[in-house]
């Protein structure tokens, strides 16, 4: 792409790529935040939810030949179920939960899920067709894949759904209350255990969505979880842990910076950019760009 087009169309091209990657990081980061808010724990299996989403979608659309909307729905349900099972069988039975113990459990689950993904889907990478054709649209000399529009659109839908859910439904408000003050929420009659389960379900569902929409572009394989998870984690931290809008903004920032670095410097350094931003933010503002230090200190399991 560097030999064609003006500076502006190059820039636009990188921007599209950045928005597309950024949307995925944003979704993964939101997934981290949901569980972090309800348990104080970073769920290291978040990347695996993304992989399972992508691979399940491949199976349902390419092998079972289901229509995309139906496969989408089934995949999200399937991964949500994995999230619920993970909470019920590995998090809930812990007798004296503390943050470190639970984090180590999530690492174990991520290894387990990765192994299962390898057994079921093999080591190769899997191709999936684009949602609505792969003919690029030309915008000011840059090319835009329809899939990119799907990705950005679905992120927008998820974010709006998120806002409506947490601000306008009783269950969403209960989940927030439980995240803010667990004892007070229990005294109000909210079952905190169920809220934790729900947070794993939601988080897995959002991870699955991220996997589904990115798979046509990156070709999913079982090892993808680690890097996607890491960048999403970076987005969650840079945005301020627990702050979902921060995660979306930081995810977008990561994606765009990466794409710009790949375009203007060298694609070899692409993966380093996100981590570099993460390090700088941790040095200068450890509570994240949109987080508050007080909130971070007050949070406990």
């Amino acid at each position: 792409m560097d030999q064609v087009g003006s500076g502006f169309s190059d820039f636009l091209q990188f921007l599209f790529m950045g928005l597309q990657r950024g949307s995925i990081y944003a979704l993964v980061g939101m997934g981290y935040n949901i569980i972090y808010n309800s348990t104080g724990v970073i769920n290291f299996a978040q990347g695996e939810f993304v992989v399972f989403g992508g691979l399940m979608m491949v199976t349902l659309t390419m092998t079972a030949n289901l229509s995309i909307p139906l496969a989408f729905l089934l995949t999200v349900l399937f991964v949500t179920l994995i999230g619920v099972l993970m909470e019920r069988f590995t998090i809930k039975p812990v007798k004296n939960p503390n943050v470190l113990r639970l984090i180590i459990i999530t690492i174990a689950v991520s290894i387990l899920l990765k192994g299962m993904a390898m057994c079921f889907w093999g080591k190769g990478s899997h191709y999936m067709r684009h949602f609505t054709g792969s003919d690029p649209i030309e915008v000011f000399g840059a090319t835009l894949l329809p899939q990119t529009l799907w990705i950005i659109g679905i992120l927008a839908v998820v974010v709006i759904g998120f806002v409506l859910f947490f601000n306008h439904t009783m269950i969403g408000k209960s989940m927030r209350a439980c995240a803010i003050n667990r004892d007070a929420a229990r005294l109000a009659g909210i079952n905190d255990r169920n809220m934790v389960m729900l947070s794993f379900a939601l988080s897995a569902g959002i991870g699955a969505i991220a996997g589904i929409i990115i798979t046509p572009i990156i070709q999913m394989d079982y090892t993808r979880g680690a890097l996607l998870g890491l960048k999403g984690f970076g987005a969650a931290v840079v945005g301020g842990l627990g702050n979902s809008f921060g995660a979306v903004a930081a995810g977008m920032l990561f994606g765009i910076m990466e794409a710009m670095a790949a375009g203007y410097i060298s694609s070899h350094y692409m993966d380093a950019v996100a981590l570099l931003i993460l390090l700088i933010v941790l040095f200068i503002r450890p509570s994240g760009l949109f987080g508050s230090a007080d909130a971070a200190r007050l949070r406990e399991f």
Partner: protein
Amino acid sequence: MLKLVNVNSRYGLIHVLKNVSMHVSAGEIVTLIGANGAGKSTALRAISGLQPVHEGKIFFSDKEITNAPAEKLVRQGIAQVPEGRQIFWPMTVMDNLEVGGVVTYSLHGKKGLYDAIEGMFQLFPILKERQNQYAGTLSGGEQQMLAIAMALINRPRFLLLDEPSMGLAPLIVKEIFSVIARLREEEGLTVLLVEQNANAALKVADRGYVMETGKIVFEDTASNLMRNQEVRRAYLGKDKREIWE
């Protein structure tokens, strides 16, 4: 209505409640007074299900509720106003009341919930004015009223109040206590009140227990406790005889 029999509870190795036995009859206001760290709040948390009971039993309306989880006890009519105005700061007053009324919502639906919230607005009119404000921006007194409203919204039979006067102006304390007294008169609410402000607590209560280092050391009617030399010296700030006494 409520009965504790030889209740023991620990935080790790620290033995906080040592053979605590007490009872509260229906329609009574009973206060539990004592110094900081005596175990008063732990006793309340053990009743409401937030703190595990290691030995002993707790009965509510003749049913054993030892170690029942807090979220279930709310449905049986026990409500606790926790210490230190534990409302949901980043949420609006309205959201706080809605979350407080989750049980009402699940029993009586949306209309039941908003009727209950309206009832709370009548009890504490200031909350109606503040309904769209974030709870963290309320004054201390308003926050305490919100915390009490969140407990009362499910129409409990039994209210556990933990240090409602902490850090509040005397006038607001008076208003809060008068609301409690009124609810007892009108709805037969039973109250267990934990206070460091022994004077204010004994004035509104029928009976009182005095707690020292995890044990109940006195039990008497409120008026007798107010006259008790030991209690006066330790908790009512009368350590020496006035000149005319």
